[in-house]
């Protein structure tokens, strides 16, 4: 009978564990502790200033069904997430594909595409606010110069969320582009040569070689994009203030308003937990679907 394997603590292992201390401390203080406290708060009505607390059970969770703005913000968030994740990733992929083809001035384009990622959302919001300005914004100037009517980008509920999405895609597409580019360049050249010998055209190479081999890249970018999209707040806060008529009012905006504007801390905590559950559910399904099959060549 073989001797059971004993976990041996070595000096090296202990040293490794020591390196984890700062991260664990931060994780404990900034993630675990607030999450536990938040869960507790979601079952109470808590006055942030006096510390007075009343246990209300699941009332905060049940209240969402009476809250029309919760449903409105949920619908807005789902709409934003679907459009921004799909279009944003498609745009990133397109840019990465162009760069992977080895165009001239690749580094310059890479820098240009990535530059918006490093800008603060405050700067981006102000710049796009001016571009979208209904009367003297650049976008309407261009539309008018080709004979099209002006668009009230930010004051029309039909256009407002689309305007936010366009800004977000512009600002963030460069990040995913770099990841897609790395994924594409990581596909062995030999596989393309073999596919060419088998008579595969460019489209078939893309479908049967590139995409399957970038499965985990897709899983990563789509997961990260989806989580980020569900948490959208700063962009509509700066660009539209959640309006017009709540057209860009998102779930995190609703949490912020309830917590820090209307002082309903317990309800805001309950909303946060519902959002976390929603994100977990969607991302779990998404990840399982994206990594379902294993690819071997």
């Amino acid at each position, binding site marked *: 009978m073989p001797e059971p394997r004993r976990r041996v603590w070595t000096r090296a292992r202990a040293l490794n564990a020591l390196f984890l201390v700062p991260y664990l401390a931060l994780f404990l203080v900034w993630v675990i502790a607030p999450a536990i406290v938040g869960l507790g708060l979601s079952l109470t009505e808590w006055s942030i200033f006096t510390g007075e607390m009343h246990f209300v059970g699941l009332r905060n969770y049940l209240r969402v069904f009476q809250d029309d703005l919760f449903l409105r913000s949920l619908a807005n968030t789902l709409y934003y997430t679907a459009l921004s994740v799909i279009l944003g990733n498609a745009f990133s992929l397109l840019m990465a594909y162009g760069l992977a083809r080895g165009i001239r001035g690749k580094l310059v384009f890479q820098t240009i595409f990535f530059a918006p990622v490093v800008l603060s959302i405050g700067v981006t919001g102000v710049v796009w606010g001016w571009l979208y300005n209904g009367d003297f914004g650049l976008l309407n100037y261009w539309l008018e110069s080709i004979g099209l009517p002006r668009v009230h980008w930010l004051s029309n509920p039909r256009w407002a969320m689309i305007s936010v999405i366009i800004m977000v895609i512009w600002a963030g597409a460069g990040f995913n582009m770099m990841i897609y580019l790395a994924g594409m360049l990581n596909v062995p050249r030999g596989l393309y040569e073999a596919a060419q010998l088998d008579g595969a055209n460019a489209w078939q190479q893309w479908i049967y070689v590139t995409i399957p081999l970038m499965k985990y890249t897709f899983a990563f970018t789509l997961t990260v994009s989806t989580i980020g999209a569900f948490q959208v707040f700063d962009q509509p806060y700066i660009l539209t203030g959640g309006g017009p*008529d709540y057209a860009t009012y998102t779930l995190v905006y609703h949490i912020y308003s309830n917590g820090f504007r209307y*002082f309903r801390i317990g309800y805001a905590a309950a909303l946060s937990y519902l959002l976390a559950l929603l994100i977990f559910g969607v991302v779990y399904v998404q990840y399982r679907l994206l990594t379902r099959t294993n690819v071997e060549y």
Partner: protein
Amino acid sequence: MSNARRSSPRGAGLYAVVSIGLTIGFCACLCGCGAKSRPLDELQYWNGFTGPDGNITEPLIRDFQAASGLRVEVQKMPWSTYFDKLIAAIAAGDPPDLFVLHFSELAAYAEMGALLPLDDLVDADDSFVPHADRIESVWDRCMYEERRYGVPLDVHMLGLYYNKDLFDRAGLPYPSETEPITGDELIALAKALNVDEDGDGEPDIWGFTFGGAPFRNFSSLLWQFGGDLLSPGLDEVTIDSPAGHAALQWMVDCVEKHGISPQPEGLDTWQHFLQGRVALFTEGCWVLNGIKQNAKFRWGVAPLFVAGEQPAVWASGHVLCLSRNLPEARRANALRLMRYLSDTGVTWSTSGMIPARHSQITDPTFQADALLRPFVAQLDHVRFEPDSPVGIELRDRYEQSIVTALTGLAPVDVALDRAASRMRRVLAWWEE
């Protein structure tokens, strides 16, 4: 050397203990970072005066420091982020010694227990600010449930700004600086001031626009037509009354029927006025210095027009408050700064604000500023938003609906019904 020889269960255990110990120590250190206390002679004064008003604060505070021997650290933050930080500081038990709220926020903060009642400290002592010197309507707005929670720094309200060059070009007389024009007069003036330079049917210079936040214009008109947002007991929504319909319809007519005003969108009004593309617009007295600095044309200001049956103008004010969490030992110096800021209301008025004390309104230095006269002329007609603890939330709800009517996305009836139903939901929740 083999791994087995290098490993030592005792040594590893020691490392584990050290790791856990360091983690706990690190956490404790992080938790304790904010717990430092300030010396008693060092005050923190927080406000959102980041515009030209901030420039007036600085010399005032310098003078206070020189006279009192106290040090004051002024933290100016944009209003948009100010409240997040203030809430966190008060909740953490480390509030600034003195801070500024608007009248509209006072009830919520008082109701939530954030503010120190000042009845004994301010009202009981007539030497703090003599009762006879207080503009009663303004000072009363710093009360909540019959207790004083703040001292007003100023009162500010809407006015009607106009471009004198455009008036001259159209050969029109300027509005009076003390008597408000009527709504019909405004429409007639604005139609005469509309200029369609390229003949495309849309004015390139607009006669009039509603400036700033829509709720200020709407509530002014609502009061002028004899209505109100809530019933006197603050327990019923009355925004959808006939007065509400008349007020909103009047605003919509300016855009759709009379064609004197463009649809509102963001900050366009301000930019349009400074570019000489708007002849008349409504805005608060706080923009006076901004216009002085930026306008490249001659301009003036008049009281807000009266479109309804009675004069009424939206107003608010800055109120100086102390936190309930402020240690007792720090209160005396905070009150000293509070009193000083109230006493120097005439200097503060150069930021475009109206003092909250009779002696300052009649002060020759203050009266010499002709641009403030139209605002002072409205003091008897100022109206404040309801001092409900859910006032901000109610405002958020109805303002969104007002905008949909102004942008033509919803008829007046629908917009007001929606506003009322949203507000009723807020009140019902609050009453629970």
